């Protein structure tokens, strides 16, 4: 194969076949995919969870991950948040002509590794190559399919007054890693993306605690925006204690340098869990037993007051709104 992705590779002809067999089949290697049928036959039982997402992240390689692993983690996590075991993935590539083959190889290898670790099979896919300028290097779409293991499924509208609000770890790492790489900034303490598949942790959590009310991963818009979505759809208030929010010093100082708020930065390996207060300790024990939930803690409670609002209690005891993110966060002047 040439050392750059050529338009020919998306032609459907021999060049495409070579790309598929030498790269994708080799990396994702599984029985269903290798049949190369027009569609995959899946072996599932019971109710099914489906989620799809397109990944267009810039830069495509960042500290702690790349667009390939992110495309697996993001969709696997979305499926898992329904209290489901992700089983299969489909993936579509839109590649800009001229992408170094080496980059594509790296991305595909990283996807394959992420899928293996998450225990999901990539069962069908698609590749398009578009002329230079028609997309930014590479876009990846993944769809995840999983088996639902708890009923009723965790859902934002089930948050109820008196519930505990837990997070599985530090906030803002992914967003700051991406932004600092994009801006060519380096901080004293390096910030790495937290991108990771959470499904194994989620499965053990909901198997022991099927009473979990809400599971959400605070990706774009960060913790603040996701909590607002939960407050809005459940009609409850959410009170968060700023003094216990887990944020690393590196993220804190990076954010204060750039004028950003870590509570609005994306996370790709963290989740919010809302459940009756009396189960909080047990949930935290399960989360902390997994390396991905090591820093789990309770950050607040669901309230009857202030319906549909998220209130932040500051360390000095003041209260203020923690609103939705409006557009993208932009660095400030002084």
């Amino acid at each position, binding site marked *: 194969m040439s050392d750059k992705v050529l338009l020919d590779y998306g032609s459907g002809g021999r060049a495409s076949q070579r790309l598929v067999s030498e790269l994708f089949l080799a990396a994702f290697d599984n029985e269903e995919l290798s049949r190369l049928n027009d569609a995959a036959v899946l072996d599932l039982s019971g109710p099914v969870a489906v989620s799809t997402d397109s990944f267009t992240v810039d830069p495509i390689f960042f500290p702690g991950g790349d667009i390939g692993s992110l495309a697996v983690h993001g969709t696997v996590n979305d499926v898992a948040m329904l209290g489901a075991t992700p089983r299969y993935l489909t993936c579509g590539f839109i590649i800009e002509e001229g992408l170094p083959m080496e980059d594509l190889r790296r991305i595909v290898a990283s996807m394959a590794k992420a899928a293996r670790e998450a225990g999901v099979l990539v069962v069908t896919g698609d590749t398009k190559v578009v002329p230079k300028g028609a997309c930014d290097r590479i876009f990846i779409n993944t769809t995840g399919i999983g088996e639902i293991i708890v009923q009723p499924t965790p859902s934002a509208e089930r948050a109820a007054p008196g519930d505990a609000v837990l997070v599985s770890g530090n906030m803002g790492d992914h967003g700051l890693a991406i932004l600092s790489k994009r*801006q060519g*900034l380096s901080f004293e303490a390096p910030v790495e993306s937290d991108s990771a598949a959470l499904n194994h942790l989620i499965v053990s959590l909901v198997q022991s605690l099927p009473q979990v009310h809400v599971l959400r991963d605070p990706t774009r818009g960060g913790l603040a925006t996701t909590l607002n979505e939960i407050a809005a759809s459940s009609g409850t208030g959410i009170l968060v204690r700023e*003094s216990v929010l887990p944020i690393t*010093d590196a993220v804190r100082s990076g954010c204060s340098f*750039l*004028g950003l708020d870590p509570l609005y930065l994306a996370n790709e390996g963290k989740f919010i869990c809302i459940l009756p207060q009396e189960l909080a300790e047990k949930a935290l024990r399960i989360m902390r037993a997994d390396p991905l939930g090591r820093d789990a803690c309770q950050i607040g409670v669901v309230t009857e007051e*202030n319906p549909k*609002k998220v*209130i*932040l*209690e*500051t*360390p*000095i*005891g*003041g*209260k*203020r*709104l923690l*609103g939705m993110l*409006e*557009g993208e966060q*932009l*660095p*400030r*002047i*002084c």
Partner: protein
Amino acid sequence: MDLFAGFRDPAIARALLEKIRGETRGVRFMEVCGTHTVAIFQSGLHSLLPENIVHLTGPGCPVCVTHDAEVAAYLEAAAKDKVIIATFGDLMKVPGPGGASLKSAQADGARVKVVYSPSDALALARDNPDDTVVFIGVGFETTAPGMAATVKMARAEGLSNFKVLSFHKLVPPALEALLSDPGMEIEAFILPGHVSAVIGAGAYRPLAEKFKVPAVVAGFEPLDILQGLIILIEMLREGRHGVVNQYTRVVTEDGNAKARALVAEVFETSDALWRGIGTIPGSGLTFAKEYADFDALAALGIELKETPPIKGCMCGDVLKGKLAPNKCPLFKKACTPARPVGPCMVSSEGSCAAYFKYNLES
């Protein structure tokens, strides 16, 4: 180790708050600086102050005081061929005449780059020798020295495609304008920490003398602000005026002479347009003769033209502390961060944005 943790100590903050709550003498105070505005809301202090402490927000957000005419000028520059606009992110969404902004200009094909420092803009000029890179120089005494240093660097490198729209503004003349306003209801000021680090606490003494007003230069942590308030209450009770420097760990009496010398070499003071306030004498910085070739207005043939004020926007009264942002008729109705009518609603340091974002009651 967090250097500032000590200035956020919740127990000390609560003790200071108790002291303030015990005071019968209140204060109608204005913080001049947008960073203070945000700090007061972000820390939750606004929600904790007793009723006799009235918090008014001031004209200290550099984005908010950027006049419509200046917005129109940089949008005109952005529309020109072979021009790349370099700007701090804050200005992207500021609505100009007719609701256009750098964001909408970008969607229309203008080349706009968000930078983190003037020297990033210089690099842009270096990398694009066939284009003119226009940096939008918005900011107060704090940003001007960096700007001046960058201009000198461009001169040393012989970069002739780097230009600056100098819309810098100076804080003391704005304070003088506020204090001269007969309708002013401010009793005391919290003066900006960063600006004062450059100009020194002494820079405000003649004003405090002339207008017999108490003022405190304060830092940005909750304890700084609380301590500042206690000082102001005591001064008012004892009928004292003058300037007290609470922020001695950063601000000296004379400020930073080197920074001021840089600014004085590259710029000279001029009258400037302030949004909602109008022309304030001696409150702006334009290029000194020897550096006139960096002036983007002249280089691109752009003139600052009076523009009709935005209908219904009460920015002027908000900036002068005469109106609480949430009392503006457009607040949260026609004017939201998603569809801002005035810049106070989009700037990260704007007082309308702070009320919208943080205030529980609004």
